[in-house]
């Protein structure tokens, strides 16, 4: 792809100009406005951005100026991003739901002189921000609604800005083209502020080379081209949207679609039927819930039929993911299932045309993952980071597995540090954090990024993320031990509700297990095992055998798959005589185990796990629903396993 006066296509403005020449009539952005999808071609994309750039130039935009961009996904905001880049400036997309304090910090830190906002709501916030950040001079807004009474200096509408630009163009007809020619691949293209769960947000600087090369690598791997359609609905400030709806769309030339409003995303998804879709786990969960509710509401023949085929498909998908052959009946029924259930359901979700769908962020629950894949939707786990221009590892088509994030992307190198942390190096490795060399030094070492995640590469070369690196522990002899990883593996069993792994600083790994009363109770009833209470059930030898089977499964899979964690097999376990309960402060309301508290409360049990007794009696305080306190007394059995 070379054209346009021999200048290399090494910045987004140059690429968009090339798209405008190459694909002048191809739709670049669609936006649903007043109930109708409005289309803008690549030619429009470049022309509008150019007009905005002229307007900015007429007000004295200097190279290196920063433009804060804030609002829902709107074509105007993508154009403002491009306009800023065309003039050698740096766009700083901000989260539209940020509170004033966060905005003030970032606008101040990024030294933004300009801001382009979607509407009155964002302008109001920016005006208050400006009182504390005098460097912010101009605020441009796209939607004029409610703005009539505003007369603050430096505040103007996008239309006014473009009109100014038109006049400016009379005296400077080639201004944008001149500025555009000055940009180069190593210039900073964007500041992506990471939301930062701890401490202040950090502004990752990504260069044109970072973004364009990674966009090209990923688009090449997935075969993305101008015919693809994507929905631009994730926050513009998130690097995922910047990569997909901006960088990749420009590099591959595909169409992005901006929903009418945040509430209409699911409707708009259905109307557009994207081929390329990116969603965090929360969205997949919501979609699944909405499907389940609609199935529940259906008449019984439909409900029965749907359930039957969905179960069939999910069972089939589980086998496929595990690499087992499909039973003949499943294969024979698949076309009928597609005709009656999977096809219509996909259509209803707006996913009939999806070729590639990513999930990223936290891990997607295996049942949800299997559900969508069973419908024939190619959902894949993506492992990425802002600092890597998103892509680090992605599962390959046809090689998807439940427990890995797939092999590294082409041109991405991954290695595991001594401490078990995942390090990587790629063309997408960022330039550093803006005005924060200290944080840059901590993350970027000799071109390698420290991800902060603990993981390893399995035999097939797939990256497996096991935990946050800082949560990783070591046994007394130095063996690496990942508590959450072990717990999740065990909790994969329907009989295990909660599990707490112990081990750091100890000679071996042990586990406190909570059985799932419903599942184990049901299991016991079917086997004619009588029990009186949770405590009674939990201490039945048969139940211990059942859980021992599950623990053995975890140990076996550790021994088979996980080179790093092979030494950290579970030696002993016990089943707790009471359920871990937020009322007793053992877990949080969001069901996160409070390790410190448990270590203290069950100190006697834990000592016994590292002693040589096989039985220990305990008393535990419980808080009843009505607030009364009581004690449960029980003899708890300890089981020891042979480890291989």
């Amino acid at each position, binding site marked *: 792809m070379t054209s346009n006066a021999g200048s290399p296509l090494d910045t987004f403005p140059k690429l968009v100009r090339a798209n405008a020449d190459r694909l002048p009539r191809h739709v670049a952005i669609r936006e649903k*406005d*007043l*109930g*109708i999808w409005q289309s803008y071609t690549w030619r429009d994309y470049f022309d509008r951005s150019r007009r905005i750039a002229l307007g900015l130039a007429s007000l004295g935009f200097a190279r290196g100026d920063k433009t804060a961009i804030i609002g829902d996904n709107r074509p105007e905001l993508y154009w403002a991003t491009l306009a800023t880049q065309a003039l050698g400036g740096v766009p700083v997309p901000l989260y539209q739901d940020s509170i004033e304090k966060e905005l003030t910090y970032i606008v101040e830190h990024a030294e933004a002189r300009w801001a382009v906002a979607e509407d009155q709501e964002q302008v109001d916030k920016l005006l208050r921000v400006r009182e504390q950040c005098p460097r912010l001079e101009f605020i441009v807004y796209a939607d004029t*609604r*409610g703005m*009539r*009474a505003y007369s603050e200096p430096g505040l103007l509408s996008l239309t006014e800005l473009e009109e100014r630009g038109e006049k400016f163009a009379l005296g400077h007809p080639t201004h944008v083209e001149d500025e555009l020619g000055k940009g180069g691949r190593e210039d900073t293209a964007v500041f992506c502020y990471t939301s930062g769960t701890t401490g202040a947000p950090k502004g990752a600087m990504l260069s044109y080379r970072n973004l364009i090369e990674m966009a090209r690598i990923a688009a090449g791997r997935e075969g993305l081209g101008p015919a693809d359609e994507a929905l631009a609905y994730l926050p513009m400030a998130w690097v995922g949207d910047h990569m997909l709806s901006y960088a990749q769309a420009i590099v591959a030339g595909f169409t992005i679609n901006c929903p*009418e*409003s945040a*509430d*209409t995303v699911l*409707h708009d998804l259905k109307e557009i039927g994207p081929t390329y879709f990116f969603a965090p786990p929360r969205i997949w969960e919501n979609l699944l819930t909405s499907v389940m509710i609609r199935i529940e509401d259906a008449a019984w023949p439909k409900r029965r039929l749907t359930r039957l085929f969905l179960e069939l498909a999910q069972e089939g998908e589980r086998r496929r993911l595990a690499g087992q052959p499909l039973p003949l009946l499943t294969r024979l029924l698949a076309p009928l299932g597609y005709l009656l259930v999977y096809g219509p359901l996909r259509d209803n979700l707006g996913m009939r045309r999806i070729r590639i769908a990513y999930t990223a962020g936290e891990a997607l629950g295996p049942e949800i993952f299997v559900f969508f894949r069973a419908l024939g939707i190619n959902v894949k786990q993506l492992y990425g980071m802002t600092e890597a221009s998103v892509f680090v590892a992605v599962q390959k088509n046809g090689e998807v597995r439940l427990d890995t994030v797939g092999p590294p992307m082409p041109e991405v190198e991954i290695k595991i540090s001594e401490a078990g942390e995942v390090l990587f190096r790629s063309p997408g490795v960022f330039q550093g954090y803006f005005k924060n060399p200290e944080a840059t030094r901590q993350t970027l070492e000799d071109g390698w990024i420290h991800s902060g995640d603990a993981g390893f590469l399995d035999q097939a070369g797939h990256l497996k993320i096991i935990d946050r690196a800082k949560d990783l522990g070591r046994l007394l002899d130095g063996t690496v031990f990942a508590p959450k990883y072990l717990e999740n593996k065990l909790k994969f069993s329907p009989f295990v509700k909660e599990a707490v792994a112990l081990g750091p600083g100890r000679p071996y790994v042990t586990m406190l297990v909570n059985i799932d009363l419903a599942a184990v109770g049901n299991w016991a009833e079917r086997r004619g095992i009588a029990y009186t209470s949770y405590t009674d059930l939990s201490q039945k030898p048969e139940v211990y055998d059942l859980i021992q089977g599950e623990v053995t499964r975890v140990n076996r899979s550790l021994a088979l798959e996980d080179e790093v964690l092979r030494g950290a097999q579970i030696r002993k376990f016990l089943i707790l005589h009471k359920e871990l309960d937020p009322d007793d402060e053992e877990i949080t309301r969001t069901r996160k185990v409070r390790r410190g508290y448990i270590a203290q409360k069950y100190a006697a049990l834990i000592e016994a796990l590292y002693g040589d007794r096989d039985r220990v009696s305990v008393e535990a305080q419980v808080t009843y629903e009505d607030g009364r306190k009581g004690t449960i007394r029980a003899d708890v059995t300890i089981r020891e396993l042979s480890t291989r």
Partner: protein
Amino acid sequence: MTATAGSAPLLQVDDISVRFGALLALNRVSLSVPRGEIAAIIGPNGAGKTTLLNCISGFYQPSEGRIAFAGRDRTRLSPPDVAALGIARTFQNVALFRGMSVLDNIMTGRILKMRGNFLLDALWWGPARRQELAHRAFVERIIDFLEIQAIRKSPAGLLPYGLQKRVELARALAAEPQLLLLDEPMAGMNVEEKEDMCRFILDVNSEFGTTIALIEHDMGVVMDICDHVVVLDYGRKIADGTPEHVRKDQAVLDAYLGVAHHD
């Protein structure tokens, strides 16, 4: 204020009385609402607020007094005539077509603006088609304005109460009224819904220049968004002025604010 043409109030009510049998529901009430203002009518239950609104919108004929709208007398007009003059209203209890979609409900607000031709409408051809598209475009602007895009196609009857109220407001706005009468627009709403509704009322007022008269029980809302408050008690007007003025008025405190009347 002298009644010159330029400063004439949009709505002028002079000395109207309404009698239901022996009950004097309104007793010689006068008020004037200047163009572009948000006015509130408040008062305890049974004070005659809705009766007053019903007189303005033509549901009731006052037994005495006169009502002038935009400088013209219109005391004896029927509701359709009143609507044609440019007065729209919403109701205390939501009155939507429950089985119809939100979009269709709002479209009904445009009926007075439609010039029907039975044959052309049936064929949806020529001017009939152009007309419908223009009305639809107008309705879409209101949908956008009130941020109800997501429920455009939902049956109105299935919506939560707060949204139904918003749809009702949308339908009233579709008539492009000069005067909008809102009967307890925030009754039964939670705090967030109330805040949204307040913002929409203020936006309608500033964006379309619509004059608004509303009945409301939530004193916080009234004090926040209204330019002018009229207080009724037992069918009689006991105060009329700015929110600050009314708040301090002893008669109002006695009749309404001071006594235990939490609604």
